[in-house]
């Protein structure tokens, strides 16, 4: 399971494709968060005077960055990777070259992570322009959190793609995994009022950790044990990497 610099050849392939339609992609990256900020922040936010000492728009800003990163990586490594795996047979072609399967998987995951970094960074710029964030020492830590989040969701999505028989399979993934994450990871409301079982469940969702880390870096609010959250993200990254390599190998090497 040797992983060398050759994984970047796979990353570069995806980047070369991205360069040809990055404009359309950026429109989505910019348009969506602005829409969320208006709808949630000014729309719903005007009915909510205060959340843990913050205005509603301030409260949800860190979480929106995480959900946007989560969705970018997820879409890239579900629909995107699955297309390359099946319809386009890109993976088959790559495996005919000295690039190993592990390197192929790493190239895909790091590309999914890059996509989430692009949307996360775009969000950060917009948040800063809206005055919701003032860049300070926390910036590298915020970017690191986004990176880890993107990595985890890219790896998880690739696992899903490698077992998916068809595109319809992603319905399960989104309904059972991604959508609950969107609502139950403390982006829009604290989980304190939920039954205890839900609170525990929420704590082990990777997005919950990312959201609370980011909320801490933004506003100094501690909503979950931060070291635990950070360690969970690291452990999940490693575990999902191994799983993604194993599952993709089972799918492709016969």
């Amino acid at each position, binding site marked *: 399971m040797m992983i060398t610099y*050759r994984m970047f*050849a*796979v990353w*570069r*392939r995806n980047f*070369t*494709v991205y360069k*040809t339609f990055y404009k359309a992609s950026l429109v989505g990256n910019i348009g969506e968060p602005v829409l969320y900020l208006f709808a949630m922040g000014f729309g719903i936010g005007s009915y909510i005077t205060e959340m843990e000492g913050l205005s509603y728009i301030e409260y949800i800003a860190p979480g929106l960055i995480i959900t946007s990163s989560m969705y970018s990586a997820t879409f890239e490594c579900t629909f995107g990777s699955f297309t390359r795996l099946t319809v*386009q*047979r*890109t993976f*088959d*072609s*790559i*495996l*005919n*070259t*000295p*690039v*190993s399967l592990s390197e192929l998987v790493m190239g895909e995951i790091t590309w999914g992570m890059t996509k989430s970094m692009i949307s996360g960074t775009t969000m950060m710029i917009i948040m800063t322009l809206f005055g919701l964030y003032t860049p300070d020492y926390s910036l590298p830590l915020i970017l690191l959190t986004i990176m880890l989040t993107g990595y985890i969701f890219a790896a998880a999505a690739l696992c899903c793609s490698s077992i998916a028989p068809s595109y319809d399979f992603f319905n399960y993934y989104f309904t059972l995994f991604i959508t609950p994450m969107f609502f139950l990871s403390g982006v829009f409301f604290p989980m304190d009022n939920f039954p205890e079982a839900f609170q525990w469940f929420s704590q082990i969702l990777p997005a919950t950790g990312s959201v609370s880390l980011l909320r801490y870096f933004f506003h100094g609010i501690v909503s979950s044990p931060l070291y635990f959250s950070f360690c969970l993200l690291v452990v999940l990254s490693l575990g999902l990497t191994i799983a993604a390599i194993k599952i993709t190998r089972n799918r492709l*090497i*016969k």
Partner: protein
Amino acid sequence: MCQSPYIVEAQSLCKLYNGVAAVSGINFRIKRGELYGFLGPNGAGKTTTMRMIQCVSPITSGSLTVNGMFVGRDDRDIKAIIGVAPQDDSLDQDLSVIDNLVVYAGYFDIPRNKAISIGEGLLKFFHMEERKKARIDSLSGGMRRRLVIARALINSPTILILDEPASGLDPQARHLIWEKLRDLKSQGASMILTTHYMEEASQLCDRISIMDQGSIVLTGNPTGLVKENVGNEVIEFSISDNADKILGSINERYEIDGDLCIIYAKNPSSVLGKLAKYEISSLSRRPATLEDLFLKTTGRQLKSGP
């Protein structure tokens, strides 16, 4: 160490898929600079054999070496000297013609500038330089196939593996590909191809192996094999009532396929002399081809493929 005259050597090579043998204990040796063909019906094990040589499908047992390196141990080094032109359209639909070559070169660690110049050279060789920036879906079938072969040549491979290089193409496109493959051969490339196209095999291959049900049935030079196993000419006619009597009178091998009787004649004039008195109207004679050999060795019945 003296270099072996064989570029690929297989001994008792086996491949099982879930306990079912796709390739069962085959032996073959491909010489350097040779154009070697694997023929056989669908499911005969040709593609599986290719995939093992390419190091993408692990071998179950036996040994397989490529340029003195062992498949299963030196996979990365083997892949570096092989060029693969797959059967299906595996071109990168998201990239332009030249980017297909440049990105693929990246997998071989070829620097971008060098890749562009090699890529442009290959496009020129395959008469595609004007389509450099075109999208893949705007190319004709023949052009796509040429691009697949060009892509397989990007790392200047020692061995080129071609899976059905000209199937499904119109005659012009097919002949252009054959011409280019002959050019490559004259430059000293070793090539392995699989094909159903008998004409392709007889036009191009120095030697062929006919596979059936996971085994190699025959190996040799196409013309020699046909002469030896089929005969010089084939005489065909529709069966009439006195077929048994007719066939009994000739001393050659024959086969009956539906209402067609096929005689593989070593001595065609003597057969025709004997047949003359029966006044058969549907009689035809033609030279024996690889197709006759193929049908004779692998059977006329349609096999259900995988």
